[in-house]
């Protein structure tokens, strides 16, 4: 290996292991290509603003004089920004250092000499592949107005409008929908091209020698053919001979077919892709949320639970393999996906970080078999996630426990407990029920003691709860897992404790504000 080659390979390894370099590269990748990145959204908006201002200046200067500063901004500054963007995109499209390292390892393995030419070819191929893509060509053309002295190149500003496709997600969706009908559009295009070609030649042959006909050249024949087949029919160029009119009639019929076929293609492409587009949008929306409860199955109890969680500001995602139930969830304005909750694939598609974003999975199908299956699937996806499951038949309780459910929700037991309390203390039951159901303004609240609070409040008497007309029911010491009812004033308050209070919700808010601001 020659000196230059050795240095090149060393430099490639250096770049590949350089944290600074990789961080910078990742940063530019995120703002240019990573849809999940927050910065990309701001970058896209910034670029769209540049494009709109550039086109606005172009329109304005058609009939008016533009200030020099604006011209400089339009021709140089914007072009320069676009140029930098173009270079960055070429850079991040493929990694040169990786190609060099790969080639070095390959040569080492096979005991061959390092092939520098292969590396150049490979790098050139990769970069050229990007530079010849439609998006990159548009980017390059959008830089052209930099050479604004050439009047013709000013029109390239319009290419900047095409750059909008790159930044606006809806444009990308639009093109991807149309791309799904590539074959049909190609067939249609071929049909239209043949009709245009044949009719242009025919009309030229039949009309070009007729002095009264406006069609003199093949270009005019071609123009007439396109205007006619598109069913626009300006009427500035018309066929005058009976033969030409016959061709016109055929082209008109072909035109109706082309238009009808095109329209139906657009409609069918969007109809077929509509659900996919909506689904992708839901997945994207959900991926930005935190504190999500995933509800598997959307039946009676699940509906009520989802409604209550949403009311309290939590994020809810419903998964169900029944499209009917998913439609019902969507009608209730809940994020819902027609995914099978019993399939690992469903959770992979969600693009969620379970540990950070998901609070718990609720298996709320009114069917024990489905809940067991879902619980097992979820447990195989994440070992630590909290799973709560409805139990319908008591005999299946052990199966749910074995499948990894943390908490079992047995509605019959709940009803039994409610009945027990009601027959024992009906008035007390109603009072507690009213507080828990939040029908009145009185609420029961658990307030976590943070570091900040424990620094300023060290004992119960310092809480001053009576001043806020709040009843302090007790303190829950999480480390001891014990509830201290009605604690005396000197009881210590520590970080991690929870105080349980009852009072008017406005006073509780004030109390919380007071504690946080102390």
């Amino acid at each position, binding site marked *: 290996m020659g000196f230059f080659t050795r240095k090149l390979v060393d430099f490639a390894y250096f770049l590949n292991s350089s944290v600074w370099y990789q961080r910078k590269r990742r940063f530019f990748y995120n703002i240019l290509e990573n849809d999940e990145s927050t910065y990309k959204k701001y970058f896209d908006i910034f670029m769209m603003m540049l494009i709109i201002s550039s086109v606005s200046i172009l329109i304005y200067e058609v009939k008016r004089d533009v200030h020099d500063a604006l011209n400089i901004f339009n021709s140089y500054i914007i072009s320069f920004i676009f140029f930098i963007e173009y270079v960055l995109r070429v850079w991040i499209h493929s990694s040169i250092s990786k190609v060099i390292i790969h080639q070095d390892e390959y040569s080492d393995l096979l005991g061959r000499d390092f092939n520098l030419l292969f590396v150049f070819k490979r790098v050139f191929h990769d970069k050229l592949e990007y530079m010849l893509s439609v998006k990159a060509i548009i980017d390059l053309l959008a830089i052209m107005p930099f050479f604004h002295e050439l009047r013709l190149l000013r029109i390239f500003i319009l290419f900047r409008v095409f750059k909008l496709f790159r930044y606006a997600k809806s444009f990308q969706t639009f093109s991807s929908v149309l791309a799904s009908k590539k074959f049909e559009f190609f067939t249609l295009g071929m049909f239209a091209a043949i009709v245009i070609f044949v009719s242009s030649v025919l009309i030229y042959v039949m009309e070009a020698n007729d002095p009264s006909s406006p069609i003199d050249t093949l270009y005019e024949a071609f123009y007439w053919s396109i205007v006619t087949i598109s069913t626009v029919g300006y009427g500035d160029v018309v066929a005058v001979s009976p033969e030409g009119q016959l061709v016109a009639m055929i082209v008109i019929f072909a035109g109706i077919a082309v238009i009808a076929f095109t329209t139906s293609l657009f409609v069918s492409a969007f109809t077929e892709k509509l659900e996919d587009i909506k689904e992708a949008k839901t997945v994207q929306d959900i991926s930005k949320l935190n504190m999500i409860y995933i509800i598997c199955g959307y039946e009676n109890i699940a509906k009520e639970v989802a409604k*209550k969680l949403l009311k309290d500001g939590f994020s809810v995602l419903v998964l169900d393999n029944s499209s009917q139930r998913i439609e019902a969830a969507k009608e209730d304005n809940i994020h819902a996906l027609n995914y099978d909750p019993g399939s690992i694939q469903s959770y992979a598609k969600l693009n969620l970080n379970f540990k950070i974003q998901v609070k718990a999975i609720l298996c709320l199908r009114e069917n024990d078999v489905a809940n067991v299956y879902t619980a097992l699937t979820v447990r195989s996806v994440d070992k630590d996630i909290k799973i709560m499951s409805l139990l319908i038949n008591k005999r299946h309780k052990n199966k749910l426990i074995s499948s990894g459910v943390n908490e079992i929700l047995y509605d019959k037991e*709940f*009803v039994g407990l409610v*009945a027990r309390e009601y027959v024992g203390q009906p008035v007390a039951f109603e*009072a507690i029920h009213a507080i828990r159901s939040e029908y009145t303004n009185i609420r029961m609240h*658990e307030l976590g003691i943070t570091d900040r609070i424990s620094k300023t409040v060290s004992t119960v008497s310092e809480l001053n709860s009576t001043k806020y007309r709040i*009843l302090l*029911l007790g303190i829950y010491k999480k480390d001891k897992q014990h509830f201290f009812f009605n604690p005396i004033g000197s009881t210590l308050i520590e970080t991690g404790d929870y105080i349980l209070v009852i009072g008017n919700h406005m006073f509780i808010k004030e109390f919380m504000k007071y504690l946080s601001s102390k």
Partner: protein
Amino acid sequence: MNITSALIFGNNEYGQEIAKNITHKYSHITIFSLGEINKEEHSDFNLEKFDLSDDWDALRNEHDTKNSIVFSALSDESENIFLTLSLRSVFKDITIIALAKNNEDANKLKMAGASKVIPIVETTANIITDMLKKPIITEVLHSILYEDSKLKIIQIEVANEEIFTNQYPADIDWSDKYGVLVLSILHEDESSEFIYSSKTKHNYIKNGDILIVVGYEKDLDKFKKLIGGK
């Protein structure tokens, strides 16, 4: 009136769970099955069969219906409503607690004459969301309400108003003086007030008012004796 027996209509999981949870309260518990009873079926409770023919003489003769509480827990919602309606038409003063699938059926059951309706879906959903939203409160309340904890929540009717003379409920230091916490007061006109509401700063406690009190059994007993409560 001292209710000593419970009549549970509906030999299903709901009926069994209700029976299990109220055994400490009633000396006689009977579960009524609509139709034939499976002889091989094992139950810890007395099982009897009944039908919806509106002939309640057997029930009247064999059970002390005047001192009974009834649970309508049939699986079929329409049958449950029909049962509640026919029981109410025959037993005017009996307490009927009925199970409803949801709030819509709960209204129908109330119209049919149920004294109290437990909507299954809403109750279950409330408990689930409470467990998620306020796990600690739910745990504490669960132990106070349903488990054999020493901490209890009870209702006490005031019979000795003199001890509260010239003191508004909001101004009394219940915790310091009696070792209990009073959550709310139910007045004779059935209006209920939270202990720190504005009204409790202007109205004195009267005999017949019911206090909802939380505390340890020992303190509650003392307090009960003090205010002459029932």
